[in-house]
């Protein structure tokens, strides 16, 4: 099997250098390179496919939506630091690493990421459980109410909702409601 390809680019020189030194030291079976400027990064992403992109929120923010969608649509992202990336909801952020992690912690993180390939599941069928949840979302219930009603934890409901949005390509509550009506999951609201 070919080794997985990784590209590293953060705004901080220290982080850039540090991350590649750690990967080198760990001797993982990954093929990694660093970019030294945003232009170099964009050029690299345009010409080659990378399995992983190690970066931070600031860099993600500086990319345009089109660059995010076109250049990173299959690449899994490992984010250094805590910055909120809610402005880029379509990216596959699979892991967050804090810059204050100890050697053991960061080793474990990288081993976990690169050893068990976090593949993206491609099963697009909506399950019965997911249908139940769509119905309740469409009826205007909150995650907490759904969790209580179906005897699930809120965390499970949130995971289901993420999966539903990914499968259907519909993210908003009003969008899900219309999906539910169009597919006969709930009746037309009488008005």
């Amino acid at each position: 099997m070919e080794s997985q390809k990784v590209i590293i680019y953060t705004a901080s020189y220290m982080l850039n250098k540090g991350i590649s030194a750690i990967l080198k030291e760990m001797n993982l079976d990954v093929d990694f390179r660093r970019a030294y400027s945003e232009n170099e990064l964009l050029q690299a992403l345009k010409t080659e496919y990378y399995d992983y992109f190690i970066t931070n929120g600031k860099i993600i923010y500086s990319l345009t939506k089109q660059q995010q969608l076109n250049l990173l649509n299959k690449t899994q992202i490992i984010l250094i630091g805590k910055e909120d990336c809610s402005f880029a909801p379509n990216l596959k952020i699979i892991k967050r690493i804090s810059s204050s992690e100890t050697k053991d912690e960061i080793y474990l993180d990288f081993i976990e990421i690169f050893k068990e390939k976090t593949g993206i599941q491609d099963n697009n069928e909506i399950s019965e459980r997911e249908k139940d949840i769509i119905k309740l979302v469409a009826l205007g219930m909150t995650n907490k109410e759904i969790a209580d009603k179906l005897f699930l934890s809120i965390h499970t409901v949130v995971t289901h909702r993420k999966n539903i949005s990914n499968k259907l390509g519909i993210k908003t509550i009003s969008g899900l409601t219309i999906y539910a009506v169009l597919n006969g999951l709930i009746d037309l609201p009488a008005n």
Partner: protein
Amino acid sequence: MVSKDMKMADLVHQNYHILPIINRFDIRLGFGDKTISQICEEKSVETDFFIEVVNVFLNDEYFPKENLQKFSVESILDYLKKSHDYFLNVKLESIEKKINALIDICCKDNTSKVELIRNFFIEYKNELIEHIKYEDEIIFPYVNTVIKADIKAEKLENNEFRINYYLENHTDIEEKLFDLKNLIIKYLQLPKEVEISNEILFELFDLEKDLQNHQNFEEKVLVPLVLKMEDKLKI
């Protein structure tokens, strides 16, 4: 990449979707054989800015932030305002008209389905209008005060507001548009009315692209420029 010496007519031949963008510079059809730079000079449009805007539109991943930040805030602001006018007065209305037309020609069984889509569109439209009005009425006038203060090298009177408050994300509105497209593409089955459904979709895709570029100009060009001026004026 488009250059100054290209004929304006050829630019339109290359990609006619560029027309509404060109119109934002008060440049209208009937170009004759004039080049881009000739027409820009006639209309007192900053040619280099025009070229960059056009290239950003034509090349999906092209967005030369640093270069764009060299243009005057006035040019950028003017372009953004004209885009707002286009969204409000042309695009949204045209989409709504087409959805209404679809309802009119739909057979009875399907009317309620399309009405759902219309309601969703109206919800989206209202959110977008509110957002645009906020920018037109609060953000852009603020940017103008910063520009004025910068020219006179004065301190700003308004100490409360800063441009980065405005960096609230557009995600919610964007998601609605994305959902709307998907509902039509994946889940709205209508037996006959193919043409008009296609047309609605084309317009939604156009709008989405236009809005994304617009947002890039706001977040990655306008805001950093104003931040720099604010820093200089030490508010």
